[in-house]
């Protein structure tokens, strides 16, 4: 699964991941491989990412939007 986190100023994260948990406006949700396509807005919070080596990373965001399609996740964060 490929994840990209981009802000207007730069790209924060780009790479392959195992799973991720997003702070959606209607409740946080996890994304595993082969998740069905979704577009959701995000509220202020942390994106928790488990990468291929099972290491977890946290990215704090101030809201944004996430698009998942075809095992590709793109986060437009602020």
């Amino acid at each position, binding site marked *: 699964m490929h994840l990209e986190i*981009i*802000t*207007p*100023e*730069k*790209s924060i994260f780009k790479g392959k991941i195992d799973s991720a948990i997003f702070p*959606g*406006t*209607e409740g946080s*949700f996890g994304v595993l491989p082969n998740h*069905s*396509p*979704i*577009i*959701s*807005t995000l509220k202020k919070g942390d994106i928790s990412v488990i990468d291929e080596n099972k290491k977890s990373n946290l990215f704090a965001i101030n809201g944004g*939007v996430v*698009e998942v*399609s*075809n095992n590709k996740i*793109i986060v*437009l964060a*602020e």
Partner: protein
Amino acid sequence: MANLKEIRNRIVSVNSTKQITSAMKMVSAAKLRKAQDAVVQMRPYSNKMQEIISNISAGLDSMDGAFSDQRTVENVLIVGITSNRGLCGGFNNNVIKSAIKLAETTYKDSNVTVLPIGKKFKDAVKKTSFSLSPIFKADTEKIWDDLTFENTSIIAEEIMNLFIERKVDKVVLVYNQFKNAAVQILQNEQFLPVLPPEVNETSSSNTVDYIYEPEKKAILDELIPKSLKTQLFKALLDSMASEHGARMTAMHKATDNATDLINDLKLVYNKARQASITNEILEIVAGAESLK
């Protein structure tokens, strides 16, 4: 024939001017690189944003958000984006002229207020009869010292509030778009109300059936302010890159001119020097001759 000392002084003064212009050129070139990088960095964000918005609005029948409200245009806000500093060719003047022309022709029947970003436009507005926008604060100049998305958002939000409160019916951005270091394209861009995105036939044919969370309309309501901030940020970045590009070109020309001038002056100087030496020899020879 001008005297030698005068010419020498001029050469020295032109030379120091040349040093300044070539240093300024160097500085602008470095800043241009940085500004260009920033433009490139934000491109994926704005492209993706546009893609998602057109994806969502393709499924919606109408775009009746608060920001796409088409009203009869009574109050127009012109946002002019210029730099704080001069010495960059026609860069600032083009924006100022175009904004004034816009106010006097296209919007001559409506009530025009102006929001200047950058000192040059503010100074120009003071000389005209246009009224400054009430949201104008002195710190719109300072944005160039620290151009971040956050700082841009503050301005964008204030403009959006004006629109929501129906104090303005239309907002236009006037700025220089960056093409390359030598070429800037002057842009008059409608900021508000939001124009419905162009539905791209090729992209809509392979749209995926997304789950929307929350529903489409709510997402759109949240995304449109973001996309407006992005649009303003993009305009500012473009303008910054253009400014440095324009200044670099202007300083390059100035340096070239100084070099030409120095060459001409040197020629005149050497001619004058030779003439005076010839004169001296003539005098000596004549003096020696008369002593025989």
